[in-house]
């Protein structure tokens, strides 16, 4: 039984091109998005999205604005360079994978490896996120990715993190695991920083991670990042910022140096 797929229905609503994605295969949907952007369209509204993968992947367009209504499938905006994407719903695994620039705003929850290898831009998730979020995030000079989560994060947050900033606010908690972040926090971290709006049990820290007092520049960064986050979701930034934060950083920039060579200087 081959499942019949539908062609995307396209219409216009003010300055938006509206695409009804119900039953549309991801390849057709993404080709359509690329085509519309090439033709100069800058505002897209995707309705009835349900699990289509790779939306806006590799899109180079800093003035594009894409609204997604529904569940965005795996690897949303992977390798994207510039677009603003607002998801009214949840995102599946790998949103923002290796994203270079742009902004993803998620009104629902995210699952695993959100912000995987992210190298620039911003991701704001209002709800909870899953495991290995921010794995291998990195930064280079002025390219510093920022990921802010309103709820909690699962285990291995910021695993092998090489740069960038992660902020977990813990505004809502899970019944099954009320901690702000899971076990093995920042395992293998060797760059960047994680800010958690709560105390963090030392037992939860992964190999190579330590906590550190917040500096003035940390507070400036938090007030800016949390301010932006709160304006996306109509939250009171002052209230959210009025709490103790814990900062997690690497113990050294080469935590595994001795594992692969005898020489300590190498």
């Amino acid at each position, binding site marked *: *039984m*081959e499942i019949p797929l539908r062609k995307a229905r396209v219409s216009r609503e003010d300055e938006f091109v509206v695409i009804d994605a119900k039953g549309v295969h991801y390849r057709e949907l993404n080709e359509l998005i690329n085509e519309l952007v090439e033709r100069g369209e800058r505002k897209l509204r995707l309705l009835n999205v349900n*699990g289509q*993968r790779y939306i806006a992947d590799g899109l180079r367009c800093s003035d594009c604005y894409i609204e997604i209504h529904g569940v965005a499938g795996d690897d949303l905006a992977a390798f994207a360079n510039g677009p603003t994407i607002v998801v009214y719903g*949840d995102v*599946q695994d790998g949103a923002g994978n290796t994203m270079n620039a742009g902004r993803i705003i998620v009104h629902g929850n995210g*699952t695993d490896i959100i912000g995987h290898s992210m190298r620039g831009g911003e991701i704001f998730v209002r709800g909870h996120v899953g495991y290995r979020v921010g794995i291998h995030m990195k930064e280079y000079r002025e390219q510093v990715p920022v990921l802010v989560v309103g709820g909690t994060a*699962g285990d291995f947050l910021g695993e092998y993190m090489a740069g960038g900033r992660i902020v977990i606010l813990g505004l809502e908690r899970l019944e*099954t*695991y009320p901690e702000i972040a899971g076990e093995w926090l920042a395992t293998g971290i060797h760059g960047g920083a994680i800010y958690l709006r709560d105390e963090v049990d030392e037992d939860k820290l992964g190999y190579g991670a330590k906590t550190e007092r917040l500096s003035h520049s940390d507070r400036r960064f938090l007030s800016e990042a949390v301010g932006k986050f709160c304006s996306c979701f109509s939250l009171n930034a002052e209230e959210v910022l009025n709490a103790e934060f814990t900062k997690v950083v690497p113990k050294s920039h080469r935590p595994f140096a001795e594992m692969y060579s005898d020489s300590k200087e190498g």
Partner: protein
Amino acid sequence: MLQKLSCTGYVRMCGLGGILNRYGERMPGREIIRMSCMMRDRYDGRGGGFAGYGIYPRYAEYYALHLFFRDEIAKERTEELLKDRVAIIKDEPVPMRRVKEIPQENIVWRYFVEVPHRFRDRREYLEKEEDYITELVFTINDCIDGAFVASSGKNMGVFKATGMPDAVAEMYKVEKYRAYCWITHGRFPTNTPGWWGGAHPFNLLDWSVVHNGEISSYGTNRRYLEAHGYKCRLLTDTEVVAYLFDLLVRRQGLSMRTAAVALTPPFWKQIERMPEPKRSAFTALRMTYSQAMLNGPFAVIITNRDTMVGLNDRIKLRPLIAASSEDCVYLASEEAAIREVENDIEKLWAPRAGNPVIARLNEEVREEVIH
């Protein structure tokens, strides 16, 4: 205009799904097929399947054996064995359509059987009827060339083959069956061959398992199971999960929660932090079942006649989403698969690694906190 699907995605993985109607009301196969199809880009066509519970109400008291035969000789030899070991109440071909995507490699037959009282004195009978049927299943799989038992539970059946799940469903007419619990799997075989017997679900008695990932502890688990009389003959890692649940829950009487602690226990450093007497209990379980512990990346759905359980490996290396509506509980690799078939979701969440999500008939679904 309708466009036909061609499955040529490029990032592949297994996908699994399950629905349990908590009031035991039977649902046609349509929804589980739609769930499976929503995840079509995960599979590569080398294995697809379904298991349904409640599909044979007229023969509910008999073991329903679904069998694959490579040829008539295998069928004849199997039937000789069956006639010697059980009473065949009814047998017939499993109704099938020809589909162009799946070459008809096997004869697929079903037998409704019972174990007559007079057989209970036999040497093979041991203690329980289920053990007698288990022994029969292993004898067929192990000793009869070209014969293979796809499922052996009561009032349930497994429908699987080498193909995409939608083609498998079409071939077996899955949409015509009604079940109160359905599970499905689309396969992307990684380490082991794609063949009809290697497609999921894997089944023994009422236990069925679908699995995404790999069981790295397969060797240890297999030796442990073989010491308890199980024979692993399906050339793939997943079957040990079905047998471990049979051993721990059916034969040894552990609860689903305790079995999950044995199979995906917390790490030692987590156990050390537990208060007594929990610490001693968890230590004892880990020591007792060290060889049953499942390692490697996986998400599995395990079902029996009244329960559906979702379980992840201890560090969550594969996706699994759970959800509930007023009538049903859902498990799937992707949220989109659940939303495709249910508009009124009351709760949808990603369970924590190693915490079993237990859905039972007439009960609220719950995630058991172990980790």
